[in-house]
């Protein structure tokens, strides 16, 4: 890149940032004016109202359940999709279609799917499960397909050279290279799905988000604080357990 075009690139980047900041009405004075309200908001949350702990825990449990079912079904759906979207496993026409479809579906986030499924099957945790499932299936399929493409051919050839059947080659040459990675990806998505499922309640798709939104609307800040604390604890515990487990897999 010549010095001239590098300078031009910087002008474009800085211009884009400045333009976006103006259009989004970024304002330091409004931010400073808002500080007392933020402080007030925080102050009203203390002390948290522990009488709603039961509701918070019920919501947290439902969030976990949404993430568990959604991730588990997605992991199964992602298997055939992942192989279809792997350059070295699928015929070119299938690979092309699978990749394009996955990219299109993955462009839409879980919350948008939740809006769609709430409209389709009604309120409650079930549309949440569907939303988590569809988005996670497309993400996992992409991750699986990349793992399949990165498979080492050498060990596969070595197992075949012992006189193994094709099924044995798959079991001992291919799967040991893939299964730990698949499990690790799936656990990682489970972690992120806990966070994603926590806000599904905002659009009526179940879980702890329902209580956060309800208490904030009722201006019951101490109750909202309890629910938020439970959510923070939940995310931390799941992240910790899952990352410990993943470290042992790979």
């Amino acid at each position: 890149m010549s010095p001239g075009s590098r300078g031009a690139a910087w002008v474009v980047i800085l211009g884009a940032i400045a333009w976006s900041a103006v259009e989004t009405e970024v304002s330091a004075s409004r931010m400073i004016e808002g500080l007392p309200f933020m402080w007030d908001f925080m102050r009203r949350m203390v002390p948290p109202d522990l009488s709603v702990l039961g509701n918070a825990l019920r919501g947290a449990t439902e969030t976990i359940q949404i993430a568990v079912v959604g991730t588990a079904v997605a992991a199964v759906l992602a298997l055939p999709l992942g192989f279809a979207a792997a350059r070295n496993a699928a015929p070119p026409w299938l690979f092309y279609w699978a990749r394009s479809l996955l990219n299109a579906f993955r462009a839409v986030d879980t919350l948008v799917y939740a809006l769609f499924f709430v409209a389709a099957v009604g309120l409650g945790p079930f549309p949440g499960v569907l939303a988590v499932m569809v988005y996670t299936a497309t993400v996992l399929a992409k991750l699986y397909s990349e793992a399949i493409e990165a498979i080492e051919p050498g060990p596969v050839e070595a197992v075949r050279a012992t006189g193994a059947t094709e099924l044995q080659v798959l079991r001992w040459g291919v799967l040991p290279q893939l299964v730990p990675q698949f499990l690790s990806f799936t656990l990682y998505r489970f972690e992120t799905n806990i966070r994603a499922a926590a806000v599904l309640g905002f659009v009526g798709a179940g879980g702890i988000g329902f209580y956060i939104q309800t208490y904030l609307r009722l201006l019951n800040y101490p109750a909202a604080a309890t629910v938020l604390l439970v959510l923070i604890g939940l995310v931390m515990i799941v992240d910790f357990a899952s990352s410990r487990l993943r470290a042992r897999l790979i």
Partner: protein
Amino acid sequence: MIHVRGLRKDYPGGPRALDAVDLDIGPGEFVALIGPSGAGKSTLLRCLNGLVTPTAGEVRIGDEAVTGASPEALRRVRARIGFVFQQFNLLRRLTVLENTLLGRLAHASRWRSLVGWFEPAEVAKARAILVRVGLDGLAGRRVDTLSGGQQQRVAIARALLQGPAVVLADEPMSSLDPALAHTVMEFLRRINEEDGITVVASLHVLELAQAYGRRVIGLSRGRVVHDGPPSSLDAAATARIFGSASA
């Protein structure tokens, strides 16, 4: 033991990898296959156990045909041929013992082998071979925690557990440092002398071929250009194999 007639291999878009190769290797021989990289050594070894299908020609191991064999017959032939790879080609997340036991897949009960259950007698045999290659005490270790030299010995143990009549080794030492290269070659010599296993090893180091091979076959551009005892490798012969530049 190994019979090759008129073997030819063309890779699409590439030069001819093997051309009119005729070879007879008897039981119990130790053959060093030498030649510059790209001479066709790997292709020749892979044609011997059917990992590569030749364009033309015939390969037989004992009285079983490799070329044109049914999948079932090919698996039977492969079961009797151990193959040691340059890059070891182990399953890095599996243990030393598991990798070794893969040498028994063709003999193990098919369905049991799929769930990873091997006969106690086979496991005992695998452990005995691990002791023999000097890896006792490491059976439960994941192979990716081992050194390169140890990994190559796991690969040799896997090949030995097949109970092979032939061991083919494709530059088994070129991923290792020189001291370890001798250990590996020494071990191939031992299984040749003590077990009567026919060994064909491709080597790119002339000194190793002269030190270990009792017969040296030279390949150049897919053709056999030399075949004789190590003592026959004079300046003219090395020039034919490696070209005058390196002679």
